[in-house]
Every structure is written in structure tokens, then in C-alpha cells.
């Protein structure tokens, strides 16, 4: 076990830092729109927002190539966007529209995108861990040098398939990175009530290389991810990256009254003191890369982009009912 190197020691170029910031702002703006769609009763069902956790998806995906694979979770919008999915087709999927990535058949919890290597979000906690490991098995077998990243929340630490998968990944030296997003809450229960021992002790038990990083610091996440991806491509096997982060909103958009499991004070503290966007913006400004006005312009630009994407999704048609039986079988 090692701690990721201090990001100040790393040399991340300006273009990359701006791209990562932009991507994080996009995810935040996307999720704000999702919440509005829910509040305006335009979205069927519920959605699990990624706000607060943006630096994890963005830092990790920035270290991946277009051919690399990811698997995602029920809280997956950030992963999909960071891997390159387009907001308009994502909103369309969230609204169950034909133009959505899955023709509206998947919805928020099942967005997949073959073009960006996204094997799909998964509504079974831990459900995609073996799939991501299988993708890494293919990469090794086919010698195509692709790395597979498995995003999962700390709630998935309770699923046995994680340990079965890590065991095989290590035995077979598979190029897979297990990214544990610890937002501290298994739905409505603090992870300390469900998780015995040290989290990093679990991958370590299998000999899986394990690190912990500040999940609110996109530079730190990227730096750690880049190193682990490089390691995996060199054939050095799987890794486990624990990213400590925080879920700003409830378990899903309808989880409004949360004080029975966490305090408003705790939430406020993360938002004001640990926000990944604010942290990155401050650093960009302090480094003289952008000024406040440019940051504001960027936000305005992205908000407009998201509004346009929402408009598209709202106005685009539902699939025809005749599609209900299509694609059950290939």
C-alpha cells in the first residue's frame, strides 16, 4: 500500500487541467438539470446524482484512452460523461426516449456506450465488477493493450463477487483497476456500520496493488490513475484505488430529508471546504491559467449547452411500442 504522490509534484499540462475542469463542470451542470427534470416531473423514475464526486470520474477517465473500458454504477452519469458520452443522448436515455443511448430501454441506471468503451452502468451493487474483470481478461487474451476500469461505491465492498474477481484478476495479472468511490454512505447507512477492518486491507489480502487518494482533488486522482493505468498496460496486473469523496445530494433525487443519517452541517462542510470544482478552479486561478471571469464564462457556456441538450431530450420522441420486443436476443 502506498499513498499517491502529492499532486504538486506532478506535472499536468495546462490543456489537460482545463479539460478536466470543464468536464467536472459539465457533470455538475448535467446533474443539476437531472434534478430539475425530476422536480418538474419530466423524468420517469428516479436518478442517483454524482454531484460532489466529479473529480473521481474525471481524473480516472482522463488517464484512459478511447479504447479502454469502463463499467459504471447506478450513480453513473459522471462516469459516462467523463468517458465521452454526449449529454443530449444521455438526457434522452434518462427520459426513456428513442434517441437515448439504449433507445430508452436502459434509463439512468443502465447507460452504455460502445463508442467510448462504456460497458454499461449497473443497478446491481457490485454487478459490474466481474464484467470489468472479464473485459480485462479479453484484453490480455487478445493482446490489445486495453485497460478496464471498474467504478463501484463503497457499498459494493459488501459483495462477495468483488473478492472473487480480485482474486482471479491478481492470479491472472489482468489489466483492471478497481476504483472504489467511498462517498461514506451505503444508501442511507454510514459505511463504518457495514465495513469491518481497513478497506485497503481487502485488496492487499489478494496481493492487489492498492492506493488511496483524495477523491476531491482531480489532479491527485488523475496522477494516481495515470500511474495505475500505465502499470496495468505494462502487464503488472490489477490495482485498487480508493477515492474518498462525498455525495452532495441524497441516495437519489427523491431522498430529501436526510438528517436521520447525516447532518446538514456535515454536508455543508464538504460543499464549502472540499468541493472538487472550487478546489480545481482556485488552483487554475492561482496558477495564472485562467481568471475568475473566464471561469464564469465557462460555467455559463456549459449551462447553455446542457439546457440545449435537455431541450433536445424533452422534444425527441419515445420509442414506438413495437420496439418493446426488439433486442431481447441478438
Amino acid at each position, binding site marked *: 500500500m502506498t499513498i499517491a504522490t502529492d499532486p504538486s509534484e506532478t506535472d499536468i499540462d495546462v490543456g489537460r487541467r482545463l479539460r478536466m475542469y470543464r468536464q467536472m463542470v459539465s457533470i455538475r451542470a448535467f446533474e443539476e438539470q437531472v434534478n430539475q427534470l425530476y422536480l418538474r416531473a419530466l423524468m420517469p423514475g428516479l436518478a442517483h446524482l454524482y454531484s460532489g464526486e466529479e473529480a473521481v470520474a474525471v481524473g480516472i477517465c482522463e488517464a484512459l484512452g478511447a479504447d479502454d*473500458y469502463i*463499467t459504471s454504477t447506478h450513480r453513473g452519469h459522471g462516469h459516462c460523461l467523463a468517458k465521452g458520452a454526449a449529454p443530449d443522448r444521455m438526457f434522452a436515455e434518462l427520459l426513456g426516449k428513442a434517441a*437515448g*443511448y*439504449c*433507445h*430508452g*430501454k*436502459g434509463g439512468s441506471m*443502465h447507460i*452504455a*456506450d*460502445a463508442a467510448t468503451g462504456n*460497458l*454499461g452502468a*449497473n443497478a*446491481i451493487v457490485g*454487478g*459490474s*465488477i*466481474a*464484467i*470489468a*474483470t*472479464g*473485459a*480485462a*481478461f*479479453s*484484453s490480455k*487474451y*487478445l493482446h490489445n493493450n*486495453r485497460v*478496464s476500469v471498474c467504478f463501484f461505491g463503497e457499498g459494493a465492498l459488501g459483495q*462477495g*463477487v468483488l473478492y*472473487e*474477481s480480485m*482474486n*482471479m484478476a491478481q*492470479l*491472472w495479472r489482468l489489466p483492471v483497476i478497481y476504483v472504489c468511490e467511498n462517498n461514506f454512505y451505503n444508501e442511507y447507512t454510514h459505511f463504518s456500520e457495514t465495513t469491518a477492518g481497513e478497506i485497503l486491507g481487502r485488496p492487499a489480502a489478494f496481493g492487489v496493488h492498492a492506493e488511496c487518494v483524495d477523491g476531491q482533488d482531480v489532479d491527485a486522482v488523475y496522477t494516481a490513475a495515470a500511474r495505475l493505468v500505465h502499470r496495468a498496460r505494462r502487464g503488472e496486473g490489477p490495482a485498487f484505488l480508493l477515492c474518498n469523496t462525498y455525495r452532495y445530494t441524497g441516495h437519489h433525487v427523491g431522498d430529501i430529508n436526510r438528517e436521520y443519517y447525516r447532518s446538514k452541517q456535515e454536508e455543508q462542510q464538504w460543499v464549502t471546504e472540499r468541493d472538487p470544482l472550487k478546489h480545481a478552479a482556485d488552483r487554475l486561478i492561482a496558477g495564472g491559467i485562467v481568471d475568475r471571469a473566464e471561469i464564469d464564462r465557462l460555467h455559463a457556456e456549459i449551462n447553455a449547452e446542457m439546457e440545449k441538450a435537455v431541450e433536445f431530450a424533452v422534444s425527441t420522441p419515445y420509442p414506438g411500442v413495437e420496439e418493446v420486443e*426488439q*433486442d*431481447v*436476443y*441478438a
Partner: protein
Amino acid sequence: MPEVIARELTFGEAIREALAEEMRRDSRVVILGEDVAEAGTPFKVLAGLVQEFGPERVVDTPISEAGFTGIGVGAAMTGLRPVVDIMFGDFITLTMDQMANQAAKVHYMSGGMWKVPMVMRTTLGATRRSAAQHSQSLHAWFCHIPGLKVIMPSTPYDVKGLLKAAIRDDNPVIVFEDKMMYKLKGPVPVEEYTIPIGKADIKRAGEDITIVATSSMVQVALGAAVMLEEIGISAEVVDPRTLWPLDEHTLVESAKKTSRAIVIDEGYARYGTTAELASVIVEGAFFHLDQPVARMGAMHVPIPFSPPLEDATVPTERSVFDVARALCSKR
């Protein structure tokens, strides 16, 4: 006509030949499972494959059915055609999330973007004195889930052709093999062939009663048919061969012709395969039937260890004969 020299293979040998042929034909085909390599499985069905194809393609896994099944799903989505080996059908319970929630749904949930061309081979069947956790016939569990295909071969010829078709199929296909049948011999052509998934086979033609039988029950039905012939009853034995997709037409047409039908399957009768097949026959041939469709399956008990108890749980030639004779004696 040139004389055809019949070649006989056992059920197990036919499986091995199907796998070897497909692995030679397509380098993307890999086998994952417990004791599949040097051990060749406890049934020795895979013996010799690791020597020909190497440990990269015949992969011994830990005893982690959920994990390696899920790895099979992910590998199938990303360019391979895995054949996952689940030693005993009872262990499919451990794979249910990977099969029912993942493999079965990936294609549909992704709007057809991702495919899962994976085969799961596993076993069914009691009377091996293996008790309650190594003797079940749980194929109906998979038949219940849209997105999966379930095949139930009953002869060396069928298992070879169907397994090859399953490996070439772009969907998750589960093959249930009766473990009592691995030593059963039957003719298998030397020439390459496949059998389309979804096509029933009339194993014996007859006029008076239709016996629809699956997997392990096909031989039982054929035995009962011989006994019935001795008392002047001509039984037609129909083997659906694949439970989903199901060749409803052949079942219904046979029942229409004979006007009586029994459905036999080694799974539990309640909420099971026999219920579905009987319902298909009733819906399709109602006005042609002279008698209610009879169902015969495993008794609704955990499979007991004690031999006389275990033997009582599954249909036999004698019990099928008795039910058929009773149906045919009524007018």
C-alpha cells in the same frame, strides 16, 4: 448408395469433439471453470483439451462460480466466446446475478449495443446418489428469464450439433447435460454439422399418444414406448431439444395427431418445465385432445440420498407406461 459406416461416440465424447472443433475453428473460444484443465472435469468430459489448446484457453478457475461466470460475461462482451463450465447444475444458484441480471439483460438494456456470446455448460439429473445439493434439475430457472436460451440435448448426436450452434450463437446459451448420460453411446457423423437451436425432434413416431420428454427423460420415454408397444399402444416421443426458444409447432402438431399427451421432465413439476409445455399443448391443440395433458416431473422434495427414496422422486419407464396406459384406456 455408399454404405455409411456408423461411428458411435458417447455423450461425453460428443461434447468434447464439439468443443475441440469449435476451438480449432475460432481462436476466441475459451473454456473457464473449476477443474476443467488437467482434471478435464470430474466427469472427464474435457479430458485432453488443455493438452491441445493450452492453459490460456482451458482455464482452471478458483471455486468462484459467480466470479468466473461474470468474467465470462465481460469477456463475451469484449470479443471472446467463453464456454463457462458449472460442474453441477445445483451451483447455478451461485451464478444467478451474473446470468439473470447481467448476461440476460445486457443486449436489451443497451439497446442492442453489447452482445453476450457466451455458453454455460452445466448438468442436471438425480439417481447418482449425490443427495440434495448435487442432483437437482434447475433448468426452468433460466427458462424464466428473457434473454437466455436453454438447450437440453438427449443424445450424442444432438449434444454435438447443439453445443456447436450454441458456441456460434450471439446470445447467452445454457446447455444442460444429464450427468447420467455421459457414457451413453450413439451415432455421430464424422462430417461437421450443427443443429439449429429451437427445433424439436421426433425421437420415435407413433399414433396413439404423444410423450414429450426432455434430456434425461427421453430415454425413459423411449423405454416406456417399447413397453406400450407390447400392449398395442403406439407412442410418439417428441424431444423439444431446446426449451427456449421452443418449437411449439412440433409439440402441438403431434398432440393434435395423437389426441393424448404426457409431458415428462426431470425438473420439479410445480411451476416447472412440464407446466409450460403442457400449457403450450393445451392452448394449441385443445379441441383435438381426448384427455387432459398429464405432467410428470421430479417430486416436490429435496432430492434425498437414500437410494429407494431418491429413485422414487423421478419418473421411470414403468411410471410413464402406467400413466400412458391409463390415458389411452379412457375414451
